[in-house]
């Protein structure tokens, strides 16, 4: 029995497209010559990415002294950027896996680019813990038992920092696998449309001789569901473990049990913010309005208002518990956060993350791409500041007032953050030219939604009845 969708539902794809139109619309953007706009973006972001590489090289040559960290504030922009990028990397798998398990068919138009975004964000994220060690090469030695006077000395599996190594590398690997598995049938389509031998070879190797056999689809669909099932707990585990980096310490402001759900909610929030930013640009420049419709944007807006409210609730809960616990250190940490020297960052965070998404309660604004775009930028800024607030304001005034200090990021730190955006966008520009940016194989499978069905017509059945 095929899936039969209610004719009362709004169609997911607009413009009365045929199956071939879908293939053509998506594939034509990676065939032919790239536009000037694309070259501009590619070289522009490429230059910024080169600056990122140069800054990392300078850091490794000169040492972490080129950053503004001090004895009290040992984590600044580096770990803020790490947590920020990992958070960005959560929307892709959430859209691919969690929405798949919940049978949210609208995911098919956006999952491919969201997954790509996930991969690139995790690449950016993974760099920061590595480079923040300064002497990067020693970090690799620590993974294996390294030679010393006492015999083989192993890594400490009781440390959340080591769990994080496993979580991030597993997440990167499984996201890449999930993304590639989803790409195979679409790459086969691109291969069969290719005229140039080079393209035939490139897409032929990547698509591994896929020919649409239903015997293969049978295994494929089961495997895809398994990946969704594996990736769903994985995506929750990753930011949970990132939050353990803080929560298992004894620093006031970090040592709270609310951290895992708070971080996961924030990660989904920031991830959807970035997905919106990128897709609103891609939709306009690649003319994908019929595939990424206002309904898709509205759905993402709803996820943002939900997760933004979760984050707002967490901010309130933290304050309440700081008072209710009766711990003076905890209480001080939070009062210092909102009124201390870093209060500016706290209030930027609150206005971007809690106030700005409130516009999404209104349907008219939720369906306005310009409003969504501005709001998504605010969410990106706000969520970067959330991590900055958590890390820096908790560190800069610790138990010992004599060691209290302030943190001034150096120009190099600021440019390193900018550079990581360059790398992220550069990879994304390459992706939209090389891979089909919309999972059209999956889109084709949901195109029946909102259309009267043959079978119903034949049997004269009520088209509202949905079964399958």
């Amino acid at each position: 029995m095929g899936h039969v969708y209610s004719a009362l539902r709004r169609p997911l794809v607009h413009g009365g497209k045929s199956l071939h139109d879908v293939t053509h619309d998506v594939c034509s953007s990676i065939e032919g010559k790239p536009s000037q706009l694309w070259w501009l973006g590619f070289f522009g972001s490429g230059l910024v990415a080169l600056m990122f590489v140069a800054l990392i090289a300078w850091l490794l040559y000169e040492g972490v002294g080129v950053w503004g960290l001090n004895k009290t504030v040992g984590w600044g922009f580096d770990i803020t950027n790490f947590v920020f990028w990992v958070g960005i990397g959560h929307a892709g798998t959430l859209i691919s896996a969690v929405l798949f398990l919940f049978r949210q068919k609208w995911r098919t138009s956006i999952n491919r680019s969201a997954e790509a975004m996930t991969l690139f964000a995790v690449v950016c994220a993974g760099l920061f813990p590595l480079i923040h060690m300064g002497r990067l090469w020693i970090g690799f030695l620590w993974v294996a038992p390294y030679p010393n006077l006492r015999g083989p000395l192993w890594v400490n599996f009781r440390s959340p920092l080591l769990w994080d190594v496993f979580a991030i590398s597993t997440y990167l690997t499984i996201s890449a696998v999930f993304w590639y598995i989803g790409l195979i049938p679409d790459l086969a389509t691109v291969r069969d449309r290719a005229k140039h031998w080079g393209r035939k070879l490139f897409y032929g190797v990547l698509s591994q001789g896929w020919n649409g056999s239903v015997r293969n689809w049978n295994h494929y669909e089961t495997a895809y569901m398994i990946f969704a099932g594996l990736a769903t707990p994985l995506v929750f585990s990753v930011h949970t473990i990132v939050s353990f980096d803080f929560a298992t310490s004894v620093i006031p402001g970090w040592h709270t049990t609310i951290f895992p759900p708070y971080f996961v909610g924030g990660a989904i929030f920031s991830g959807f913010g970035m997905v919106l930013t990128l897709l609103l640009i891609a939709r306009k420049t690649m003319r994908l309005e019929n595939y990424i419709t206002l309904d898709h944007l509205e759905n993402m807006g709803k996820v943002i208002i939900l997760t933004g409210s979760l984050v707002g609730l967490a901010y309130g809960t933290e304050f309440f518990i700081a008072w209710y616990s009766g711990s003076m250190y905890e209480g001080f940490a939070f009062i210092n956060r909102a009124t201390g020297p870093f209060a500016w960052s706290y209030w930027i965070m609150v206005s971007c993350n809690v106030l700005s998404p409130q516009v999404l309660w209104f349907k008219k604004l939720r369906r306005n791409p310009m409003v969504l775009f501005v709001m998504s930028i605010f969410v990106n800024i706000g969520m970067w500041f959330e991590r900055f607030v958590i890390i820096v304001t908790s560190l800069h005034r610790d138990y010992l007032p004599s060691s209290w200090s302030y943190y001034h990021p150096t120009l190099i730190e600021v440019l390193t953050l900018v550079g990581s955006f360059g790398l992220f966008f550069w990879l994304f520009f390459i992706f939209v030219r090389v891979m089909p940016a919309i999972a059209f194989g999956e889109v084709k499978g949901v195109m029946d939604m909102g259309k009267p069905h043959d079978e119903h017509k034949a049997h004269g059945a009520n088209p509202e009845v949905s079964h399958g």
Partner: protein
Amino acid sequence: MADQRPDLFLGVFGDQDHTLEATKACREAGFTFYDVFAPYAVHGLDRAMGLPFSKITWVTFLCGAMGCIIGISGMTYVSAWDWPLNIGGKEAFPFPAFVPVMFELTVLIGGICTMLGLFAMCRIFPGKKARLFHPRVTDDRFVIAIEMDEDFNESRCREIFAAHHAEEVKQVGPDYDAMAAEGGAA
């Protein structure tokens, strides 16, 4: 070898519902499917062909379990056996602290093996030449390929294909692999 294989009888369709119904009808008629080809996953087409549920779930389960065991035994060896270090007075075998890495290794090894298992079960690999039975089978055409063995009845099959709006019906010879490869490349 090639001459021992039966000829194939192909029906080309342009719609998933027609393909699905034609597949069901062919199965009821008792024909042997060589395969059915579809540009995207049509839910239920595999069951209509009479294919059993994929066994790939076992690959995930067994390899995931292996990953979990590797995780717990490796960490136990490192932390409790080979060189137990007293770090902050924590136990040498703190089970809850091992859970995150056990979980990650379950997912990692289970996931990678599922991917490799999928490639093996689909018999696909980089460099494999795609056998296409219609140049647009990865775009918008569906192909039902029936083996012309002793269960086959050509007039009945033509009837079924025609009843379900087949766009094209054709017979391909026993060297269909070579032919299909050429047709696909065209």
